[in-house]
């Protein structure tokens, strides 16, 4: 393993410390819980608080999306492992400004359980909590079972839109409705070219044979829909656009936001190679790209691969996406 490590047991604490040191103008670590990262604007009185959380190893997600008019509090878990119920609860408390808290998170077994318990704990303190569970990954279950799908990079749109609604002064129901609309209108797909290694384990926990590509891979290496010989970048881009848009029947003329993220060990230039072709293909389908994002927005340690997310926009989503915000990740 050629990695920058001290003690593998300390990677999460050291990652959090680095974010706090580098971005002290936007976020800090909670004094009550070292696994809660707070926006410097968290807990603004009268504003709905917005919280997320998840396992580490996806940086800049999740903590890099805390900031001004962005997430108020982020619960940080071990590598690829849900934060504890207590940590979610502490994040909820810190985010609460008296108008309730929206917890916007991804559909994973551990996160579902820990958020459920944290919500019960918050209810005892009369903090109103509502949730939106992201399920944008088209290859993780059929469309007919959308509730089983995982949340992936579409979560970024869900956060941005939900946080902007809170910043505009929406009440808890309004924030939840906006975030729900953003994830409902998002579809994502991932492809993996090489696996990732958990620092504490020291070897890859799944395999992708050299020369192969896993289409539909999840953010922790969950298997996709097929493994095939790695074709040209253009063919990969075409395949990804097809998987996303075949799942989401959008009328010609629809404006979309497009997000291409690397999974950690893919060179940025290759993301742009993919994007060039994807943009062409998306427009060839009659859609209009209103805003593209290309970069490492939601990674999986050192996995080689990329994800594509397409969000179908309306005037409300465009206004909320465009609302001024600052955070380390975007």
């Amino acid at each position, binding site marked *: 393993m050629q990695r920058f490590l001290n003690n593998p047991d300390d990677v999460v604490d050291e990652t959090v410390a680095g974010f706090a040191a580098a971005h002290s103008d936007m976020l800090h670590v909670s004094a009550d819980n070292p696994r809660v990262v707070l926006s410097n604007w968290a807990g603004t009185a009268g504003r709905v608080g917005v919280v997320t959380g998840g396992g580490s190893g996806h940086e800049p997600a999740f903590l890099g999306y805390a900031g001004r008019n962005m997430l108020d509090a982020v619960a940080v878990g*071990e590598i690829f492992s*849900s934060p504890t119920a207590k940590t979610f609860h502490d994040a909820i408390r810190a985010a609460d400004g008296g108008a309730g808290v929206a917890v916007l998170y991804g559909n994973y077994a551990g996160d579902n359980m*820990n958020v459920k318990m944290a919500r019960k704990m918050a209810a005892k303190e009369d903090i109103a909590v509502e949730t939106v569970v992201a399920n944008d990954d088209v290859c*993780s279950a059929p469309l007919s079972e959308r509730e089983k799908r995982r949340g992936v990079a579409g979560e970024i749109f869900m956060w941005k839109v939900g946080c902007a609604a809170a910043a505009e002064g929406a009440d808890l129901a309004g924030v939840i409705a906006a975030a729900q609309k953003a994830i409902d209108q998002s579809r994502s797909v991932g492809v993996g070219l090489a696996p990732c290694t958990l620092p*504490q384990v020291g070897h890859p926990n799944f395999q992708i044979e050299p020369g192969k590509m896993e289409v539909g891979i999840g953010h922790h290496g969950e298997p996709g829909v097929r493994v095939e010989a790695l074709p040209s970048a253009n063919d990969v881009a075409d395949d990804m656009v097809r998987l996303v848009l075949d799942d989401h029947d959008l009328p010609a003329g629809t404006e979309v936001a497009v997000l291409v993220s690397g999974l950690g060990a893919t060179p940025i230039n290759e993301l742009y190679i993919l994007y060039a072709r994807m943009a062409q293909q998306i427009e060839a389908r009659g859609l209009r790209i209103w805003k593209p994002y290309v970069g490492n927005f939601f990674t999986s340690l050192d996995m080689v691969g990329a994800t594509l997310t397409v969000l179908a926009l309306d005037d409300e989503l465009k206004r909320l996406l465009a609302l001024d915000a600052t955070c380390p990740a975007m």
Partner: protein
Amino acid sequence: MQAIANEGAATLIHEIAAVIVENKAWLSEIDGKIGDGDHGINMAKGFGRASERIDAGDTLSSAMQTLSDVLMSEIGGSMGPLYGMMFQDMADSLGAAPQIDAAAFGAMMRAGLDGVLDIGAAKPGDKTLLDALVPALDAYDATLTETGDFASALAAMRDAAQAGRDRTENMIARVGRSSRLGERSRGVLDAGASSCALILEGFANGIAVRLKSA
């Protein structure tokens, strides 16, 4: 004797924690085949930390409460809440009972199972810890009804847990991360069922030894 004292039975959790820590690498290896390979690491961390905070003179109830607190507040993932709820409800069920007899132990384990069912989304056959726990408790109840003997029921529980764990090898995972593997999840033991069988074996053997010497 057909009962052990609650007070001082905290050492049962010390013994179970020691077994979990000993099996850290094995549990991670099983998990790594269809999961992310951290089950042993997280279990050993949680049980190990809890064990250090449990005094040998404590009651089993209080030891299980400490274990639950550590799992829920420091471990996270899926196993933190699942085992956390299980031990929380087991601790609540046993409460201040001075003696742990066969009925109290059976009720305690059923409460733990209910806790797991309440927080999780799995059912038996989904390749989870339930596939060790449910048949083990059924065997415990059946043997107790048949023989009226605590020690025999504990042995039946332990054996059924191990058999249940072994049956997970041929199951397809239906919940959690490994469920995305579908058919590819067959042929490997479930890590949760494996750690659950270790826990039940720890209770069965530990209580049996105490019954003999009581």
